[in-house]
């Protein structure tokens, strides 16, 4: 009997305590369902794997952007909230996490769809079905398919935008035959297809050799290319593959002018190789990220926030450019929302496809102080930015300075 009384008392006490809380929750829910509910940005990336440093830079950039735009009233009056998910750069995991998120009842307003094209490609069918806007920094040409993925936009230059820099150098130096060594995987083959088309399109001969991920030495591949007497070599590769190539190139004594592609250029060569192994090597960078370029007026403040933030250590390996990719993904959407005066996904999409060119310094940084390096001239058939003729420049390998600018030829 005592036990029954105790249980009833416990039940009543629980009801008394929880009812007001439930009421509070209900009130909150009603409020959040209104027009001023937060604008949710769902950022999925690799927080524990091989590219976690890059992911930290992207995330820091998007969070700095959210903070910056929230300070000036958010996006069309809605506070920007960034949610994160660790997809471990695994498309299957990324899809599973996104589906969990969508099954929670509310959809995010914007998705940053992962740090690799494979992850982005796995998420886009779901995002398209759900009519969720996504803006990312991944650059596979398969992502630029507005008919298939009408709500996805890119903020980084696709690989093909880097090839004109090589053609420009090749024509100025009178090269007739260009060789390329690339990784025998999807990334390498995609890069080779771009350079082959550009080189042959410019009336030059193109010869090629591949290497496997398991290769520990590149001297045989390089000797094979050397026997065909090319005037220059294009290299695709990152990490040990890039190092093995440079070392093998020095070992066989082949100081042919060497031009790294977009991937190969991002590797910190000076940390691992000597000047004699890098003789004649050139890397390609956006003029906006070079220390010698004219800077965006808002960049100093952005860099200051990066340096005082939790992901400051990544600055020496990724420069400020990767942080700006995260930042710019949100900045472009904010610009579109101001133009559309709405955050409705269909209206945002329409605004993105007819984005007005900013009259002052743009809200985004990777395009330069006047937006001259990268034009977000999206249309109904092109959802990727367009680089200017002199956006990408070949320079000697260098390092990032304390402010994340690339300094060519400085150890």
């Amino acid at each position, binding site marked *: 009997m005592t036990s029954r009384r105790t249980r009833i008392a416990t039940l009543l006490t629980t009801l008394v305590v929880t009812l007001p809380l439930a009421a509070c929750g209900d009130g909150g829910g009603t409020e959040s369902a209104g027009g001023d509910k937060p604008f949710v940005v769902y950022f999925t990336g690799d927080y524990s794997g091989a590219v976690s440093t890059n992911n930290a830079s992207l995330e820091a950039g998007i969070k700095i952007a959210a903070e910056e735009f929230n300070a000036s009233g958010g996006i069309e009056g809605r506070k920007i909230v960034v949610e994160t998910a660790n997809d471990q750069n695994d498309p299957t995991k990324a899809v599973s996490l996104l589906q969990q998120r969508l099954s929670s009842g509310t959809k995010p307003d914007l998705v940053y769809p992962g740090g690799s094209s494979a992850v982005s490609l796995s998420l886009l069918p779901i995002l398209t079905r759900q009519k969720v806007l996504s803006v990312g920094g991944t650059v596979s040409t398969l992502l630029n398919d507005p008919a298939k993925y009408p709500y996805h936009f890119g903020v980084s230059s696709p690989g093909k935008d880097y090839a004109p820099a090589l053609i420009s150098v090749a024509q100025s130096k009178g090269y007739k035959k260009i060789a390329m060594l690339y990784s025998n995987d999807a990334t390498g083959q995609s890069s080779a297809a771009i350079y082959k088309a550009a080189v042959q399109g410019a009336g030059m001969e193109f010869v090629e050799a591949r*290497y496997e991920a*398991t*290769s520990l030495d590149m001297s045989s*591949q390089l000797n*094979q290319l050397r026997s065909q007497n090319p005037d220059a070599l294009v290299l695709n590769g990152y990490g*040990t593959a890039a190092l093995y190539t440079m070392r093998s190139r*020095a070992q066989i004594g082949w100081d042919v002018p060497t031009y790294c592609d977009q991937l190969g250029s991002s590797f910190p060569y000076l940390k*691992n190789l000597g000047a004699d192994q890098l003789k004649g090597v050139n890397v390609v960078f956006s003029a906006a990220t070079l220390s010698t370029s004219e800077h965006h007026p808002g960049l100093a403040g952005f860099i200051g926030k990066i340096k005082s933030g939790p992901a400051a250590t990544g600055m020496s390996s990724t420069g400020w450019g990767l942080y700006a990719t995260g930042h710019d993904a949100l900045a472009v959407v904010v610009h579109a929302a101001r133009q559309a005066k709405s955050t409705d996904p269909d209206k945002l999409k329409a605004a993105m496809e007819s984005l007005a060119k900013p009259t002052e310094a743009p809200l985004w940084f990777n395009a330069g102080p006047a937006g001259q390096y990268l034009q977000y001239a999206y249309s109904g058939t092109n959802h990727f930015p367009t680089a200017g003729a002199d956006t990408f420049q070949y320079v000697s390998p260098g390092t990032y300075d304390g402010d994340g600018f690339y300094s060519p030829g400085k150890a």
Partner: protein
Amino acid sequence: MTTVWAGLATGAIYSLVAIGYNVVLLASGTFNFAHAQLLMVGTFLAYTGAVSLGLPAIPTVLLAAAGTAAVALIEERIAIRPLLGRSDAHGALITTVGAATILDGLAAAIWGRQPLTVPSGLPERPLELLGGAVRPIDLVLIVLTLVVGVGLHLWSRHTLTGLASLASAEDRQAASARGINVRLLGVGAFVLAGAIAGAFGLLVGARTYAVFDLGHALALFGFVAIAIGGSGSQLGGLIGGFATGLIYAFAVRYIGAAYPQLVVFGVFLLILFLRPRGLFGAALERRV
């Protein structure tokens, strides 16, 4: 000739993996799939000694050898010892693969995912030798691998401990009945294989850099080397490794850069069909 030197230098690393597989296989009957990862750990310990601690070459080699031997001992205690005496003989294959995965993850967590330069102390400038260019580090790696491979072959055939290892590999129970301490031999084999892998960490790291996923490439071709040369034969593993490196280099140079793996595995399959025990492996009789 430059292609020959490149093939021999890469082949020397495959030989080292095959030698490590054979040391453990001969003494304990276990195939240690994590041996390539022990070589990877050796490169990182060499980096720690030479760069982080600023030690000269000899103390660096000793540090890497002792450290990798300790890791191998721990692997034996955790991944092998609990399975001894169990009827399921294939359990160790799975646990050593697990150990390899753990070692990859630990290396990435401790030393990071970017390749680290291991300084050998030898000049970087290539030498002209027999009509080809070869780096001094590659030459030393080739010679020392030959010395260790031949030394282990002679040891396994002409010393009491070596013969006890062979007996233990053939029949653990019979060897035990004849007074051979098979458990100690097994532990000793892991420690020896680890010590050799660690001792070569400086030379291997100077060629491949210290990188957490190095074991993947080495394990694959180390396995091909042992299959070509014959499992259980130190001489076979040594020659199998060099042969794999040379076939790979020549296939890239003269057949095409798209085909080296196809050619290597074609040779591998051919040997499996024509001589399943490998070029130097001994045929075993088994009652069926």
